[in-house]
């Protein structure tokens, strides 16, 4: 076996080393944080909606943790620009795994889905459908 890796393909490593949309918004429509208590991964997502109150105009993330959680956040922010809240809410873990393009081992799924869960929970809180301080992912 060479240095090649199943879970750590170039794309994941690239997004980890050069995260896209990393930072914070001055005036987000909503913002939410989450963590994997067992790994110490943390993610904050800031979302600005367009005037229609439905389209994601800009989404950025900040935080730190393992390559899977951070690359997933980076890729997700790229994918979500210009989509609607309804499209965001329709996403599930399979969409995240497809987006990452690698097999995620069962124990690492919670790292992969953290960013998605954080932004989805953020949207639900914004719409008054959920009430939590911090999103936590478990198996």
């Amino acid at each position, binding site marked *: 076996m060479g*240095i090649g890796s199943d879970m750590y393909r170039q794309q994941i490593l690239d997004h980890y080393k050069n995260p896209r949309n990393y930072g914070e918004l001055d005036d987000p429509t909503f913002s939410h944080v989450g963590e994997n208590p067992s790994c110490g991964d943390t993610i904050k997502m800031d979302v600005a909606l367009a005037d229609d109150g439905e389209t994601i105009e800009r989404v950025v993330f900040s935080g730190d943790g393992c390559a899977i959680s951070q690359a997933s956040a980076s890729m997700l922010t790229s994918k979500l620009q210009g989509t609607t809240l309804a499209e965001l809410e329709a996403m599930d873990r399979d969409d995240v795994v497809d987006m990452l393009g690698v097999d995620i081992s069962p124990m690492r799924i919670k790292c992969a889905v953290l960013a998605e869960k954080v932004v989805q929970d953020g949207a639900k809180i914004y719409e008054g459908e959920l009430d939590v301080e911090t999103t936590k992912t478990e198996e």
Partner: protein
Amino acid sequence: MGTQEPYPIDVEAIREDFPILDRKIGGDATTPGEGPTDDAPLVYLDNAATSHTPEPVVEAIADYYRGYNSNVHRGIHQLSQEASVAYEEAHDRVAEFIGADGREEILFTANTTASVNLVAYAWGLDALGPGDSVVLTEMEHHASLVTWQQIAKKTGAEVRYARVDDDGTLDMDHAADLIDDTTEMVSVVHVSNTLGAINPVRRLADLAHDHGARIFVDGAQSVPTRPVDVTDLDADFLAFSGHKMCGPTGIGVLYGKEHLLAEMDPFLYGGEMIRRVTYEESTWEDLPWKFEAGTPPIEQGIALATAVDYLDDVGMENVRAHEDLLAEYAYDQLTAFDDVTVYGPPGDDRGGLVAFNLDGVHAHDLSSILNERGVAVRAGDHCTQPLHDKLGIAASARASFYIYNTVEEIDALVDAVDAARQLFA
């Protein structure tokens, strides 16, 4: 048992008793067992979490279910008698293994965690109150740390933590300051499962006893890896788990000095632990059964005795010597890299485990990459979150060794770490 250069034991012969070591890794982890895409030889370095099970122990389990499976202490039919005798004698065997006086001092529990909880509830709820203190160390496993923390909350007692020095060892002066006449319990991990530090339990026991306190020793990492004698340690209580010492899961041991156990009320109530019951009152069985309510872990207890036989055959002095050799080798190999941080005391002064981090690579990523090369280590906080906070890290990777591990396996670990380094460069 013979030896094999450079080892104090015959590792090759030992490995033959552990067929799982021939497994390959690398495929689908959602279905148990080796699959067609598994291709990397297993390098199992997660023994501090759970050790593997040698054939004689697997056979003892199968023999029990095939030959004399039955509930204990209940039937006067032959199967029940055979099971009862074997289960009771397993207590004697474990007592002998740790230098206890007899079965009265050996309680079978579910695991180390259950053993701590038994003492915390059955002894602690009675003995602790406002104005009392429980002294722990900053390197306690959650099993004891969380348990004493919560029992202290219930009873109004204070918890004190003896410091861990920068070199990863216990600050004994601080411990001596903290242990005073308010102290009712000193609870200390014998070998730290994160730092590998070996704590001076006998000196702590003397300190505790000088102040009229009890000492509870968390032997989860020490009993599997070195000779442990409760009389030499003067331990009031000692806890350990079968699954870390060639035995099955589902069984732990609590040793307690007989007079202490005799004074304590039962922890769990129910069948098997009673002598006489009326609608109003109950009286308790003799030790140790008073503390073993309900159907106990019968097969696990019997198999634990077989595991103890197996380890005694290897010789616990030899087990320790082998662990020392591997710990020192791993420590030297890993500390040779500037971008690797190893936690805890030097290689020649630690138990057989090494927790470390590689700069710029999260421990979970490191562990995943190692796994893709067949190398099994633990990554996370190893149930010592406060200690990780103190070290200023969220997680670490930990390689831990046992009697079947070799220096070549540590070389495979170091190679895999290098692969991760290059991948993330």
